[in-house]
């Protein structure tokens, strides 16, 4: 286990079966890691966009209420529609949580890949992060 950055064609990344021995394998691994980093940035933006979209699709009063917190309006005058929006929000947040788990796992995977101290992998992660940020963040303002 190296403790400093090295240029090498050999590495073991994350899993026991992901062993790299050749330049082509290393190029492929760098590509995979790059895509992971792009995906990570994309998920971050996608999560926010998903929440924003569901907020917009709901009626204005309800979305306002849910932004400020459900305890702001506890009159319960429209119980059926309230129940429906609540169910929708439950599903929405369940999906959001799953996306969050994926984001956490990919984030740690990328960190562990960098921890192999392989310079090619590291450059792949940095480039992927840059490309992901460059592509994904303009999408955030587009509605």
């Amino acid at each position: 286990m190296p403790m400093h950055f090295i240029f090498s064609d050999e590495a073991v990344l994350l899993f026991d079966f992901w062993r790299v021995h050749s330049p082509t394998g290393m190029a492929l691994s760098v590509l995979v890691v790059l895509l992971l980093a792009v995906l990570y940035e994309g998920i971050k933006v996608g999560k926010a966009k998903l929440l924003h979209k569901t907020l917009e699709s709901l009626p204005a009063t309800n979305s306002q209420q849910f932004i400020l917190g459900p305890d702001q309006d506890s009159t319960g005058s429209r119980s059926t529609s309230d129940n429906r929006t609540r169910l929708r929000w439950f599903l929405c947040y369940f999906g959001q949580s799953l996306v969050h788990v994926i984001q956490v796992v990919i984030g740690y995977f990328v960190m562990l890949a960098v921890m192999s101290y392989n310079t090619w992998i590291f450059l792949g992660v940095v480039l992927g992060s840059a490309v992901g940020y460059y592509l994904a963040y303009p999408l955030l303002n587009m509605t």
Partner: protein
Amino acid sequence: MNHMGMNHMEMHHHMGMNHTDDNITMPPHHHPTTSASHSHGGGDSMMMMPMTFYFDFKNVNLLFSGLVINTPGEMAGAFVAVFLLAMFYEGLKIAREGLLRKSQVSIRYNSMPVPGPNGTILMETHKTVGQQMLSFPHLLQTVLHIIQVVISYFLMLIFMTYNGYLCIAVAAGAGTGYFLFSWKKAVVVDITEHCH
């Protein structure tokens, strides 16, 4: 301890004892001539550090030297503890966001009465920033930030053990915490967030 560490993981059984002794006595550095399996046995201490994911509950070191998991029961306890820690981390992140928004709202209210006259707006905002620096919410945020940094590093180090159970605990705890605490969350993308 190293010997036990070598025995308990099947993926290292092909390595001989001579190899292991080499790794104990010599400082860890890279040998280009040896195969990739050599890089498994490195490490600068008595502890053996795996470099790929595995599922096992024997001789797993958890952050501190006293915390060594050897039985399924201990692994279950560690799983629950890590799960709760990851949940707490998500809750802390969202609570800090809420606190920040609350203090920002109070700043806005402070500067609300001012815009009537022409020149006094700038002075008033400077004043509120100065108050903000030494205010209780900011100090609280700082303390919570310290706790958040420590916990996030702990979670990172736990994931770095490559133990499958503990990694699942971290991920599941993060998901559950996000699910439970994000009901009041507004649309905010944390740009500075990186690996957790």
